[in-house]
């Protein structure tokens, strides 16, 4: 399967390419109160509303290396929509493995952790909102 790989807080994360809807840039992210630190805000893109998440903060709860006009990886799957901000987009790679949680493989000596959108969503849903 094709894996889309990006870097966030020194982690290499891979997401199956079929979940990638677009890579957007030059889109202003609207901040929202009462959300966890990793929740950057909302964007309205092509008629859809996306929650935008700083992946570095979600993975390590550390300040990310965001720049002013970040790329946003837009995911769309049957259960939801998310925009992910990486530190860096690495690229695509074909791997001979079945998609699954915690699947790991190597790319140029670095360990890439495969994640599904549902896993990311699960992490987000477990955070505190409204406080």
């Amino acid at each position, binding site marked *: 399967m094709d894996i889309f790989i990006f870097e966030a807080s020194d982690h290499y994360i891979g997401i199956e390419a079929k979940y990638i809807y677009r890579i957007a840039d030059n889109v202003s992210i609207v901040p*929202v109160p*009462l959300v966890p630190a990793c929740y950057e805000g*909302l*964007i*309205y893109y*092509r*008629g859809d*509303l996306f929650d935008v998440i700083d992946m570095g903060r979600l993975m390590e709860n550390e300040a990310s290396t965001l720049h002013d006009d970040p790329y946003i990886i837009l995911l769309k799957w049957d259960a939801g*929509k998310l925009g992910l901000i990486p530190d860096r987009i690495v690229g695509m790679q074909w791997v001979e493995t079945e998609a699954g949680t915690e699947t790991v493989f190597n790319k140029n000596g670095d360990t890439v952790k495969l994640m599904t959108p549902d896993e990311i969503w699960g992490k987000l849903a477990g955070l505190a909102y*409204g406080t």
Partner: protein
Amino acid sequence: MELEKYQKIFIQESSKYLEELDAELIQVEKNLQDQQLWGDIHGKIHSVKGMARALSMTDLATFCHAMESWCKLFQEGAKTADERVVQLFFDGTDLLKAFVAGKGKISEPEHLERLRLISKDLAKDPEELSDQPEPELRQSVAPGKIERLRVDYTLIESLLARSQEIMQLEKTLPPLTQDQISAGLGSWINHYISMLKGLYFQLAQLRLMPVQDFGELFGKTIRDLAKAFNRDVNLEIAGGEIEVDIGLMDRLREPFMHLLRNAVAHGIEPPDEREKAGKARDGKIVLKAERRGDQLMLTVSDDGRGLDREAIRAYLKNKMGMRQEDMKALSNEQLLGIICRPDFSSASETTQLAGRGIGMNVIAQAIEYLGGTMNIHSEPSIGTRFVISLPLSLSIIYAVIFRLGKYTFAIPTSHVEAIESIDSKSSEKVSELCDLKGLLRMDGEGTGKGHIIRMRRPPKPVVSAEERKGLGIAADAIIGNMPLMAIPLGELLAKTGLFAGVGIMENGDISLILDLEKIQAAAA
């Protein structure tokens, strides 16, 4: 003029039913004993008959009635249909189409002859038809001109989104000096933008749905509820030709389901009770739509027993500790409005279908979210009427948009009483305002010293002095009073608990729509 209007509606509606009838006949031909399908076929023909009768199209109504009589036999299992019967129904449907095209009349000799033959067959026992020789093979006729398409709602949404995105390109036009931009180019750009806006609004019209279609969604449910509660109920739809945005209608589905369920479960009396009270055995529920200015008025009324005022008084006494003299001081509107309180229930016992005590509160909240209002009228043994007023636009609400710190918020305009500038003399007032910055944990952000947005009194009836105070919210700056496309909150943002939705402005900017009831509750 009125007659022409109704004839047009008749042609539109009947054509839709007859198209569906063809499809159902194809299905029933494969399962001749499917009683439910025969029931559906019966329903379609009955609907055409009802409209024909309303417009005094006697010949058409009589022909429909003859077809219905046979449907009933197959629907009840009294007779079994065969392929010849289905063919007769196909022929009958073709004839119905000719009737509809002729606004209830047929004059072609071929049609008149076919009417005579089919009517003769329908006057027989269906089993007699089976004894007749095989009908000749009919000549295949091409379907009529294609005038309407069924389009997936999501495609319309997608087209709208795309055209909105193209409109937003206007914002990315690089700044050009007067030297760089010729008069011709400037005029071309303006024309291009106006064409795009025209396209957007034409596309937006694709989202409209007649109220008639909306009302008919509930026909089967009302029938089932009536059976479950042992009631005889007819649903009537008035103003069905008014077209309303499908998004708005979709959000009204659940509230209307509650209203209609309550009307059947609590409003309409059993047939014997109605007869004793001098009423028709059949109860009547009317869904009426009308336009008043920029408002859509939707009324759901029934001719049942009216709201249970004793239950309301018992609630006021037992749950709110209200004294008799205070109850007497309440206006009729205030008294009836109590049924919209979250913990109110008049049902003596909870059933699977009604009496959970959450319905009216859910309805009131949904209507408030849509920027609408609801008035309740009820008279003992005469009936109950819910009058819902909604902004008659797409799923678009008008809202006051304001900035506080780095955030942009919206409040539906229908809730705003006034906007005042804050000057040095207003400091006393500011201290009385809702602490929105505190509620939103905006430490050190925004001054909240630009304007005060004063809300109207809460839409639900107030019964205490505390509730009489309207909410006041301080803003850094008012952006404007403008239309917003309201989108429901996602699962994550819904957890914040203080927002009612997300608003998209015409230029694509986003604002958060405040849930005033929750904010007032949190502030208290």
